């Protein structure tokens, strides 16, 4: 970390709006870098995978830029990673959207929303906690967040589910497993509740960096 500011790399693979997430994270105290190539990940404390658009073309862009393997190594190493919207869907095995094979960090498949009264699901909807999680610290359960999507992942492991949202049928709107987090909604577009969530994410990142530093120091003293 540079000083006390967690350094967050936002993965740029040609997905549209990086401005909002960049400013959202900066507004809550992050040092943000936009990473369009693997080398830009060096020195980052956490990685954000943003994204709107289609899963298949997103995967093509990630591959073309050589970002898939670095991303895989990042998550395998247990470093903090937050997927947002399409970036959240990509964390799972595969997507029905364009029949794409996706990153496979979490077991499950992304499918079209069923029985949705309107599609795309655009607008502010209620996020209900399935279990308490530090990402939602200080945010009243049932708060509104901003969604823009037509697909949602169905995790194979219920244990990763943090929150659900109802649009015709309930779907999974937040997951967490260790330092890997995923949100179907856009915190950077969700006003105060969203900024609070981003701030909570930074705190988790800072805690993780501290733990690693301590583990590193302990390892160092053992070696010595």
């Amino acid at each position, binding site marked *: 970390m540079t000083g006390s500011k967690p350094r967050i790399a936002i993965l740029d693979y040609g997905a549209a709006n990086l401005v909002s997430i960049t*400013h959202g994270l900066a507004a809550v105290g992050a040092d943000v870098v936009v990473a369009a190539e693997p080398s830009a990940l060096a020195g980052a404390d956490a990685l954000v995978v943003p994204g*709107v658009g289609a899963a298949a073309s997103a995967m093509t862009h990630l591959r073309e830029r050589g970002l898939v393997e670095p991303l895989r190594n990042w998550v395998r190493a247990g470093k903090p990673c937050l997927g947002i919207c399409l970036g959240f869907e990509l964390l799972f095995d595969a997507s029905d959207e364009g029949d794409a094979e996706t990153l496979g960090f979490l077991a499950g498949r992304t499918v079209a929303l069923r029985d949705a*009264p309107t599609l*795309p699901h655009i607008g502010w909807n209620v996020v209900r906690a399935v279990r308490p999680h530090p990402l939602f610290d200080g945010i009243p359960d049932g708060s509104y967040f901003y969604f*823009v999507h037509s697909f949602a992942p169905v995790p194979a492991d219920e244990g990763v589910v943090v929150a659900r949202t109802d649009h015709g049928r309930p779907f999974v709107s937040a997951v967490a497993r260790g330092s890997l987090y995923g949100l179907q909604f856009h915190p950077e577009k969700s006003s105060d509740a969203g900024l609070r969530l981003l701030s909570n994410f930074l705190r988790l990142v800072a805690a993780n960096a501290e733990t690693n530093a301590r583990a590193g120091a302990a390892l160092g003293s053992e070696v010595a």
Partner: protein
Amino acid sequence: MLARRVIPCLDVDKGRVVKGTKFVNLTDEGDPAELAERYAREGADEIVFLDITAAHEGRATMLDVVRRTASRAFVPLTVGGGVRSVQEMHDVLRAGADKVSFNTAAVAAPELLTACAERFGSQAVVCAIDARRLPRTDGAGQTWEVVTHGGRRATDLDAVSWALRVVELGAGELLVTSIDRDGTRSGFDTELLASIASRVRVPVIASGGASSPEDFVTAVRDGKADAVLAASIFHRRMHSIASVKAAMAAAGLPVRPVGEAVA
């Protein structure tokens, strides 16, 4: 449950918010980014910028406005007006907008909607439909025709058929404006809204004619709109976003509370 959205719309000319009637007698009302931030703080669920800059050189100015807005207003931002290509839409999204609204450009080149939806996803593609009532003929139901250029040009397109067509082409949301009601403060054309909203699955944003908080309620209840857009009643401080939402909540409509407590 999905909240019904309340959306203030700002007309932007050469980088400044302007007020006027039917694009004439424009007066400078301030900085778009600053006003957008204020509306966001007051509970706006989304902000729409309508770029009415006539000159093409104004594009760079608009991108700067979008960039400055995205850095301080953390709610969704839609930009309409003047986008005529995939590249121009790309530029607007890269500057920090979430959606782009097409109006005249969609009528002139409908395939643009498809190209943009394929590149950026339908959710980023809004089609604005300006509609005018046609005289009723005996035995037939009410119909509306699509007009462009702020209502000055007729198109021969039936508004409901056009709505179905643009959704098929890739529009993920429809911004339906009644040109008869626009600027009149005589309430929304709920018949027009319901005719379209009952036939499409994408969200419909009601526009044109807002006068009172109750109008927002009827646009949703009778017009089946998912969101309601208004300009002058907010800019002239006749009603606040909070009072509109209070009326909607009192009528049993789901709204995102203004100033929701975040500890």
